[in-house]
């Protein structure tokens, strides 16, 4: 095994072009587990921790350009207003030790259906900024980024430079099911974002299908129900029947499996419950006006 230690982003891209099988390592919270357990013996490890810009973020008018290695701990602390859904998701990641190291770039690189960030990214709306030495930068909508269980749309010579996440224009929520409040791989997870500017609701489902997915049929149903009933203007309580139908459609969007963490039936049921709860919480914030972008822990 070779340990590659690029000092700059350009060097990292060059190294990845030269060694397409090199495994990028930043926080190490996925890669080191695989190495420690002898599940993986890459020919090259590509250490990205010397590249300062990967741990920085820029807040624009419409989006936040989040460096691939910004640790979850900093997302929780500093980006709660701009990215409330992701900040909530970050807070559910493992433990303080892991949140100090792990980041969204690694979550995307691993592309586990159970990755905590995915439902929040899907709900907020995001683009993955992938870069290669040969072809430069391309933006991959997060909806098309996940291509299979632990597979993503990256080419072998590409690295994730950043994620561009839409700044919250309304309340966002995130909820995760597990056996305790820390150190839990999601049994399932659900992210929801209200977008009052476009009068749309977006969702993200984790750990209940081969990839993280949006519940698009449920979104379409809710968008029309809110539009037709004039709910965005009136801020009225959403009719229980509509909430129930939304939850049912979210559950129906799942394509889960039975595994050690839970059964397919449980996951489908739980996603329905989380969909209903997160919609109620987010809608209450929307109605309440000023608490809009502050997520409840």
């Amino acid at each position, binding site marked *: 095994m070779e340990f590659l230690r690029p000092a700059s982003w350009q060097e990292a891209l060059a190294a990845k072009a030269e060694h397409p099988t090199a495994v990028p390592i930043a926080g*190490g919270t996925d890669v080191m587990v695989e190495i*420690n357990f002898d599940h993986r013996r890459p020919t090259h490890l590509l250490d990205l921790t010397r590249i300062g810009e990967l741990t920085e973020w820029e807040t624009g008018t419409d989006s936040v350009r989040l460096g691939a290695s910004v640790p979850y701990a900093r997302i929780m602390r500093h980006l709660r207003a701009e990215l409330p859904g992701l900040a909530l998701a970050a807070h559910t990641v493992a433990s303080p030790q892991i949140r100090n190291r792990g980041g969204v770039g690694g979550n995307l690189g691993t592309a586990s259906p159970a990755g905590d960030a995915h439902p929040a990214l899907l709900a907020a709306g995001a683009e993955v900024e992938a870069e290669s030495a040969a072809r430069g930068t391309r933006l991959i909508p997060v909806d098309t980024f996940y291509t299979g269980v632990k597979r993503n749309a990256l080419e072998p010579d590409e690295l994730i430079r950043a994620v561009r996440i839409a700044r919250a224009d309304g309340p966002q929520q995130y909820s995760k099911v597990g056996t305790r409040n820390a*150190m839990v791989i999601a049994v399932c997870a659900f992210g929801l974002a209200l977008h009052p500017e476009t009068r749309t609701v977006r969702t993200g489902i984790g750990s209940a299908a081969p990839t993280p997915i949006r519940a698009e049929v449920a979104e379409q149903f809710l968008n029309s129900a809110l539009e037709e009933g004039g709910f965005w203007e009136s801020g009225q309580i959403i009719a229980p029947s509509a909430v129930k139908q939304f939850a049912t459609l979210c559950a129906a969007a799942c394509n889960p499996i039975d595994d050690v963490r839970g059964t397919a039936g449980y996951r489908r049921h739980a996603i329905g419950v989380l969909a209903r709860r997160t919609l109620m919480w987010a809608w209450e914030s929307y109605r309440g006006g000023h608490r809009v972008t502050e997520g409840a822990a």
Partner: protein
Amino acid sequence: MRVSLTVNGRPQQADDVWEGESLLYVLRERLGLPGAKNACEQGECGSCTVRLDGELVCSCLVAAGQAEGREVVTVEGLADHAAGRRATAPGVGLDEARRWQPVPGEGARLAPIQQAFIDAGAVQCGFCTPGLLVAADELLEQNPEPTDADIREALSGNLCRCTGYEKIMDAVRLAAARQAEEV
């Protein structure tokens, strides 16, 4: 490969380090610092917890090469680390600082959190203790007056199978109270 780093304030060098090796392995097997423990090797148990450039991390998930040029504090250096924090804390008068003397006999000195663990009976088999000490010390550094919820969250990445955690909670509260008295 060769890895050079600072551990507990001392420059250290390890040779013939395998590229996939963890910082934990380097500390324990190459530098003779067995304080950080090796258990789950997947970041679940926290028994390998150390500070890396001040950040609380699981040393089993840090590749050795990533620690190149970095500063590591392990439980072996916790007393010095905590003492250094107090020495630089505001409010220590010049006379008081002049009167300060090192306690003779290396190893005899304990960080306040270590003494609190002993006094509260928070140590049983002891395997999880080093990781918990490093994590609890970091909590008290960041947040001198933690609530119970703060303590629980700060220690949520450290598993203990003996104590049921109550005595550990007591120990952290005790250390926080003593720290508050000192100021």
